[in-house]
């Protein structure tokens, strides 16, 4: 047998390759079982980065569905509440370049806002309660409703369904406690900033 193989190099090569194939296949199969990952950690990680406003501005019913969609190759710039910082964080996680926010889905709010119900005008229709994705509105049928401000994500999904337009999105009040030192300007030495620094006369020269 051995002599036969030695005398037939082509068969020897085939046997060797097949053998290797079987061994590695078994190894891979074993590893796939042994190190099986339940769930998709990428979806979890993306979901962690999304702002959880559950506003649906991305076109998905909540942050997690959007996270799943991103994991399946969707654009990462559809989240206005998260804004550029979220896009950057996801880009960093997925190791892709960070695009600008897609304005189609809305603009990044400069100040965070939360919903307030003008309670005198509320007729107690419960429509906003049904719309709120995080159960942050309290009330019952024919009774006045109110927003639990601490739980409100500012998604403004409750504004549309209100039949008497008694819901306002008001900016979150910031006081002396929320104040923080602004980051000092970067010493203008980074080459990445060259683009923004180049002025008109330089363009002319070029």
């Amino acid at each position, binding site marked *: 047998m051995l002599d036969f193989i030695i005398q037939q190099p082509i068969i020897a090569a085939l046997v060797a390759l097949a053998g290797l194939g079987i061994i590695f296949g078994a190894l891979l199969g074993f590893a796939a079982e042994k190190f099986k990952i339940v769930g998709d950690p990428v979806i979890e990680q993306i979901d962690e980065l999304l702002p959880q406003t559950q506003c649906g501005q991305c076109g998905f019913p909540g942050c*997690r569905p959007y996270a799943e969609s991103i994991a399946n190759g969707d654009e990462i710039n559809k989240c206005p509440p998260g804004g550029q910082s979220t896009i950057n964080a996801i880009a960093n996680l997925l190791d892709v370049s960070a695009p600008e926010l897609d304005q189609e889905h809305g603009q990044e709010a400069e100040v965070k806002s939360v919903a307030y119900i003008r309670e005198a005008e509320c007729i107690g229709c419960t429509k906003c309660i049904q719309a709120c994705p995080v159960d942050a509105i309290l009330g019952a049928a024919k009774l006045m409703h109110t927003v639990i401000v601490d739980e409100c994500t500012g998604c403004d999904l409750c504004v549309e369904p209100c039949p008497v337009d008694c819901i306002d999105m008001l900016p979150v009040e910031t006081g002396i406690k929320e104040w923080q*030192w602004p980051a000092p300007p970067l*010493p203008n030495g980074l080459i990445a900033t060259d683009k923004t620094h180049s002025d008109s006369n330089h363009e002319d020269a070029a």
Partner: protein
Amino acid sequence: MRQTWVTPGGVHPPENKIQSLTQPIGSLPIPEKLVVPLGQHIGAPSIACVKQGDIVLKGQKIADPAGTVSAAIHAPTSGTITAIESRPIAHSSGMEALCVEITSDGNDQWIEKSGISDFEHTSSSALLSIITEAGIAGMGGAGFPTSVKLNPGFQRPIDTLIINATECEPYITADDSLIRERAEEIVEGIRILSHILGNPHNILIGIEDNKPEAIAAFEPHTQDTGINVVSFPTKYPSGGEKQLIYILTGKELPSGKIPADIGMVCVNIGTTYAIKRAVVDGEPLISRVTTMTGEACEINRNYDVLIGTPVAHLLEHNNFDAQRCSRVIMGGPMMGFSLTSKQIPIVKTTNCILAPSVEEIPHNEPAQPCIRCGMCAEACPASLLPQQLLWYSQAKDHDRLQSHNLFDCIECGACSYVCPSNIPLVQHYRSSKSDIKKAQEEKIKSDQARERFEFRKQRIELAEKEREAKRAARREAAKQAKASTGTDSMADIVAAAQARTAAKKTSPEQELAKLERAVSSAEMRVQKAQDKLDAATADSETDEKINILSAALSGAQQKLEKARTRLAEHSK
């Protein structure tokens, strides 16, 4: 002499303390209007218990503490409450916050005072409540409510009481002059503290060796009292709580812990003095010793200033020259903050107003790139790597910042002081720290939102499922009800079906009779239509009507024809 330990890093900026020590502690005329902020301490701002138009006496409480970590506030002089509104306060932001404005009546009339002479026979809790009522908060800079600090709880026994007389910041001499002039009262304050804390084993007064007069002033009062005055070489920032603990005891305060966790309590000299005044003399905290110094002011000295005195008042009485001044700083040149308005009032934590000339503290140079020279790391008292922290601050790399222990930075400013590239390192760190804190808070909020969202989704799904289940149950019930009416055997079902088919089949006779009936009724209808048409023609009705009637007649005749045909077929 007691052993002391040496902290790493540190800097030796010019001390500039002599200028303000040439004269004793002075006092100023009472300003016309005093502005007392409601948030002068760490914790919740106090709640005003007076209203506009009220007349108050000196030392009368004007605001209650809001919760445990808060402090009461008292009227610094007698007069009328003329406003309770937002005013610029002593804060780096230069923002406004709620203040009580008192217009002085010039009488400076005290409310009735009641001191305790024998505090040794008073319980700790009673003394603590006096301190709470007196509104005492740490006067070294942070403003932590003192009664909270002095009440660490039985699970944290205190064996070391440290009195912080370090005053390591340049220019400031408030504590120094207070010790020189009122050492006896301070020592009494220390004894009160010791009594409250259950007579700790060690009582140490930490003081830098650049204050020999103060050390000497302590001597007659501390002899044979068990109170140790420990002097150590001058170095900034020895007065930081963490640094002082290490210098005096050789122990490090573990990151994220408070001194009480390792059996220590650290109290500032000014606070100690205020405690004595509150307990023994019954005077709440309404004034403090503040250093007024800097070349832009002609007179440099310490004052016993009423809380709420606008800085402008202090400056005016010291011949402030705005032209020469580079900035007005509340606090020292290392950790103080620049003021954005002259109207900002002196508060409980204001130990110094520094008005340096442009030559003394020049305007900031533009920052150059970091060359990672490492001078900052040599100066850092916490053994951090400021150059790396800067790098990661610029990159907003929060993970790296935390692994480089950003939160152990005490913001002493030693790194910025030595930086040859004039980089505002401390500002970078402050900004990054608040960014990280904000991100953490947002993380908590978003986690909560996610949880609520998931819960809602689950609830809706559950409700949907329940509804579905109900619907299914109803369907099932209906089916069962239907089935229960015919639960006989198979043979019966067949028989019933056969019966139904048999019933459908009618006899030929019946069929014939039915058809005959149909023919006769059709004949009748034709007759009727004929009659109607005849009548209409007789009455000479319109053509239209006649047309309709004749159409009806022909229809009836056709139907009659059909009926006759069917009868004929059947008869065959």
